[in-house]
């Protein structure tokens, strides 16, 4: 059957066009939003890594200046502060522990004893090596409801016998 009456077809075409336009606009908008989220997440991760590295460098600087400043402290969580021209370890008694940075990050500097196994290698347990300390820096932040984390771990040694 051939339809001769075309009334209303223009309206339908316009509606279809507008609908397509809306679909494309929403798709592009979603893509842009997702892209922005990825960029923002990457930026936060870079910042967290920089904050973690900063603490690790400060811990090395403390150790280079004076081994007892880091070698004789009790195992636990610390905040690295500055006193004059020196970095100092301050006991972190916060509940929960950690130093707030820029309102978005929490940084925990943990110092613990280091152990050596029977072969003299660093190990999770064994005989304590008083000339070595293990430093772990953890930076956490919230990203769209998820807790994200960057963690650096290293050992500092009293190689100069200070």
């Amino acid at each position, binding site marked *: 059957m051939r339809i001769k009456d075309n009334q209303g077809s223009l309206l339908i075409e316009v509606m279809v066009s507008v609908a397509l*336009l809306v679909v494309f606009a929403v798709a592009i908008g979603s893509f842009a939003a997702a892209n922005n989220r990825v960029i923002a997440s990457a930026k936060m991760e870079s910042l967290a890594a920089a904050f973690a590295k900063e603490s690790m460098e*400060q811990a090395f600087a403390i150790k280079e200046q004076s081994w007892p400043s880091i070698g004789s402290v009790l195992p636990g969580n610390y905040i690295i502060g*500055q006193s004059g021209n020196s970095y100092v370890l301050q006991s972190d008694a916060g509940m929960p522990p950690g130093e707030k940075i820029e309102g978005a990050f929490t940084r925990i500097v943990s110092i613990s004893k280091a152990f050596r196994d029977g072969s003299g290698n660093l190990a999770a347990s064994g005989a304590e090596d008083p000339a070595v300390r293990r430093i772990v820096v953890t930076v956490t932040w919230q990203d769209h409801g998820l807790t994200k984390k960057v963690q650096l771990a290293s050992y500092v040694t009293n190689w100069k016998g200070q």
Partner: protein
Amino acid sequence: MELLVYLGISSMVMLGSTLFLVQTTKIRLSSDNQKLTQHSSRLALEKMTLSLRNAYDVVVSADGTRATIYSYNFNDPGRPIVSVYCGRDGQLWYGQSFVIPPDDGALSPVIEAGVKVSTVQFNKVSASLHVRLNTVKNDRESSIESTIAFRQK
């Protein structure tokens, strides 16, 4: 009538697409400037990290714009390596010599041409050099702070 409607919708789509392209190009150019400033700053910090690798002392000028790094010279222990980083005239300058610091005239730029150094601030804290380096290119700025430990004598 239909032709007019199609032309109208097509024009709107074309206009929207063109505006989108113009905007994304602007953002891209701006982003490139940002990346360039960050890249330049990071290169400078890497260079400083290398200079501090065997350092035994660092002297920072009173205004904090100049750091003189004294390093062990394992090939000739009697002649320590002296590296200088100095911020002035919108640039970060670097030079290296033995025993005594190099003359200012012998310093060479570290930051890429076209990128301006707006702030250089050195601070020696414990056995580390804290560096604040701000660079600018057109409308974008990079602000980097870094702490680099060294082996103090």
